[in-house]
């Protein structure tokens, strides 16, 4: 039997604020446990929450960035449940009246038509702390670290429109790009700044009837999201193939085994006894202010990608790669403006710069490469003052420590050799060593020219102007 998955994602994203959602404690990662806490986020008796306006601005920015409608009034509600990492015994979230309704995220899969996954809502809430189990003298002890308690989050809820693990992954990448472009979050999954719950059910292909869904919680990497979807699809398909029924449940994904297993069965829907938080007044937003936030939004990845294709003539692949990060796209545009040819700059960025960065496990953000220097270097290549091979060597220096390309070329003696006398004698020497190649050339094997050019380049330590060498070799063999 063939099944189609129906997938909806709930993505929790840390907002990039200096302080927590309802108190002034700093948001910092990697500090000692329980060192970023105060009476409010410890939920000491009598402490009260006060909303962080900056967090609201970032959440609104995200809502606008995905084309959602920002509600002029939203309400914070208490989600009541007991857990030691939840100091108040309730999480302040939004329920009946979220900050943002609707919106959509573009996804592009190789070989498929680009489409949009619609969003149900985006709401604000606070994060919980962290339980740490068994790391003390007694293995059965649990300890609480409440540094994370109260860190501002948005929860982005998609419609159940995702149809494959690859599409889920593409959705998350697209979402991450928007979050980063809009300065809403660093969305670093390794730091737990972006976490994902997967709601998944199967239905027979061609059928409109939805199956029973499960929720797989707390996935914190693209790989685990893809793995969990594959595993849960397989598990549900097996149940259905055997004539069984999928039970509504909360699942956990075992990344090592690549399997999902039931954490708890949801007999009824969970009763969190939501009600409006009487400690907070409704969040009323001035339409004028929302307008200002909208006006201050930077160009977003999707429109930038489209512009790179249509206005700058980049390939779809290059346009997508260059718009994945806002810094990279900004760098590309600055270098293009300085150099003049967007396509040349794109080629060098996507191939050479990308591979140098990959070798160093770095990114354009933390490299020393500057757009002007990069453009100047490509200019030297255009003018044949440096060969592509030498340029690549200079590029590595620029990525590592920056500098002036012309000076670097001079210091390292990498000026391209176009002196006819030098090139002629090098060509003569190579031809004298390889008489059989001349025979093959004359017999019509034009590919030998590449080999011979390589030899000349080697003799000149890669500095020979390739066009000039080609012309000299061809002329000498013809004669």
């Amino acid at each position: 039997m063939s099944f189609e998955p129906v997938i909806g994602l709930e993505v929790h994203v840390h907002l990039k604020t200096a302080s927590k959602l309802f108190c002034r404690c700093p948001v910092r990662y990697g500090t000692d446990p329980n060192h970023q806490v105060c009476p409010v986020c410890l939920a000491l008796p009598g402490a009260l929450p006060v909303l962080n306006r900056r967090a609201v601005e970032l959440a609104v920015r995200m809502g606008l960035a995905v084309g959602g409608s920002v509600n002029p009034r939203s309400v914070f509600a208490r989600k009541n449940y007991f857990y030691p990492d939840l100091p108040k015994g309730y999480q302040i979230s939004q329920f009946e009246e979220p900050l943002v309704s609707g919106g959509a995220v573009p996804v592009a899969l190789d070989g498929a038509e680009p489409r949009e996954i619609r969003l149900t809502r985006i709401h604000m809430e606070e994060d919980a702390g962290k339980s740490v189990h068994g790391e003390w003298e007694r293995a059965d002890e649990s300890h609480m670290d409440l540094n994370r308690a109260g860190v501002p989050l948005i929860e982005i809820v998609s419609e159940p429109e995702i149809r494959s693990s690859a599409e889920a992954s593409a959705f998350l990448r697209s979402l991450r790009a928007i979050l980063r472009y809009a300065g809403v979050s660093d969305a670093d999954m390794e730091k737990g700044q972006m976490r994902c719950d997967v709601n998944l059910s199967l239905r027979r292909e061609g059928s409109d009837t939805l199956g029973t869904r499960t929720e797989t919680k707390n996935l914190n990497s693209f790989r685990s999201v893809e793995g969990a979807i594959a595993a849960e699809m397989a598990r549900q398909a097996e149940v259905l193939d055997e004539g069984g029924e999928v039970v509504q449940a909360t699942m956990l994904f075992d990344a090592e085994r690549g399997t999902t297993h039931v954490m708890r069965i949801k007999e009824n829907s969970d009763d969190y006894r939501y009600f409006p938080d009487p400690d907070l007044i409704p969040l009323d937003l001035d339409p004028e202010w929302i307008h200002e936030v909208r006006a201050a939004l930077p160009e977003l990845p999707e429109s930038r990608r489209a512009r790179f294709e249509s206005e700058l003539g980049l390939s779809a692949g290059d346009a997508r790669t260059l718009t994945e990060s806002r810094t990279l796209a900004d760098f590309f545009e600055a270098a293009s403006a300085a150099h003049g040819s967007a396509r040349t700059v794109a080629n060098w960025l996507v191939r050479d710069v990308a591979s140098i960065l990959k070798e160093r496990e770095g990114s354009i953000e933390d490299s020393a490469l500057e757009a002007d220097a990069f453009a100047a270097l490509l200019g030297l290549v255009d003018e044949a003052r440096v060969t592509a091979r030498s340029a690549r060597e200079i590029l590595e220096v620029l990525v590592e420590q920056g500098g002036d390309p012309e000076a670097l070329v001079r210091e390292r003696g990498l000026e391209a050799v176009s002196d006819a006398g030098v090139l002629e004698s090098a060509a003569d020497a190579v031809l004298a060593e390889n008489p059989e190649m001349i025979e093959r050339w004359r017999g019509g094997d034009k590919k030998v020219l590449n080999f011979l050019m390589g030899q000349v380049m080697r003799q000149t330590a890669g500095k020979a102007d390739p066009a000039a060498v080609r012309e000299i070799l061809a002329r000498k063999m013809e004669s």
Partner: protein
Amino acid sequence: MTESLGTASEMREALASGRTSSVELVEGSLERAQASASNAFVGLRAEAARAEAAGADARRANGDVRSALDGIPVALKDNIAVAGEPCGCASRILEGYASPYDSTAAARLRAAGAIVVGRTNMDEFAMGSSTENSAAGPARNPWDPERAPGGSSGGSAASVAAGIVPVAFGSDTGGSIRQPASLCGVTGVKPTYGRVSRYGLVAFASSLDQIGPFARTSADAAAALEVIAGHDPRDSTSLPDPVPPYADALDGDASGLVIGLPREYFVEEGVDPEVLACVREAVTELEKAGASTREISLPHTAHAIATYYLVANAEASSNLSRFDGVRFGLRADGRGLSELYRKTRSEGFGPEVKRRILLGTYVLSAGYYDAYYRKAQQVRTLIRRDFEQAFAQCDLIATPTAPEAAFRIGERSDDPLRMYLSDVYTVSASLAGICGLSTPCGLPGGLPVGLQLLAPALGEPVLFRAADAYERRTDWHARRPGEGS
């Protein structure tokens, strides 16, 4: 034993003239607190209070007087946080807990130079109308130790009635300041919701709780409220409006004031006729002071008690979730998490608190929310509207504060519903978020009863003006326990 000097105003004058010192006043309060049989206090901070009093005296000697309460001993209910002091809410579950921070009210009192001599007894987590639901045992009414002082701020009311301190602070959620003020024969003020910061007040019902003062006169209460009132950025529900000088405008004149008498509050059912008679007489006095009266209607009054207990318990069930044995206070031994929670909360909370948590949890549950909590919110809106319409016709509303004088300790313990009816005159104003005051208006049978005055939101000045005018024409507020009636 040092004799009580009486009111805060009298103490202020004595301090100014050098006839007494803050150290002497504080020493007197501490002595009387220790000697008192009222069980009004759950803890004294003798050393800290003495040191602060010496500091206040030294400041005064340098001409630095910070407020009307500078150097004057006061008491705080055990649910108002003072840095370094226990804040136990008269509950076992907070055993061993000391607050690491000051409530805004305590910080303002500190800045004003007031000396907090101790924490007063209360119904556990402010849930009750008698101060019997206390881990420290019941507080006793200074007028008759066999009787309850009312509640939940019974310790604060008793501490003022017994002359231990001239001013004490309590919290009022549905009447917890006004009702014990009535039963103890002192003045008590429930400020407009949002007028006093709730930061550091341990929450019972967040949308209703307000801190307010008890005093022997309205003038003292006005001065005390002035110290703690005002906007606080740490409480999102705090009002931004500036605080007018409440105590300055008291001239004994009530002329021009229109007092509304809600017909629903002057029915003979469920109220001691002597209480109604005292209140009617008090209204007559106000008329003599220049006020006029008119009958008004608050048509949704009959639903107020039900609405109040739905809203307050729903909020309480959530507010009290943080007492889980994980971070502070009592922690019972338990194997595993749910046993830890169950045992801690079973051992830590008293029966009334458990009853309200259960009721509140129920009304918020899926399937019941619309029928109870949402409906209660709708009725709350109607009650608020009742008052808006009433205040279009009058400046103040006068009612009894409580349906009867102090009842005997133990008399109501097994009848929670009857106990809840003690709040029948006070909960509506709480639901509406307006301000109210209770001042003594009679001593039928030797026990005090109170006149409740209500004013619109931020109408404290008119409350104080009317109450002060009344007090100038009568001496009920000046009567002390043991002096006979």
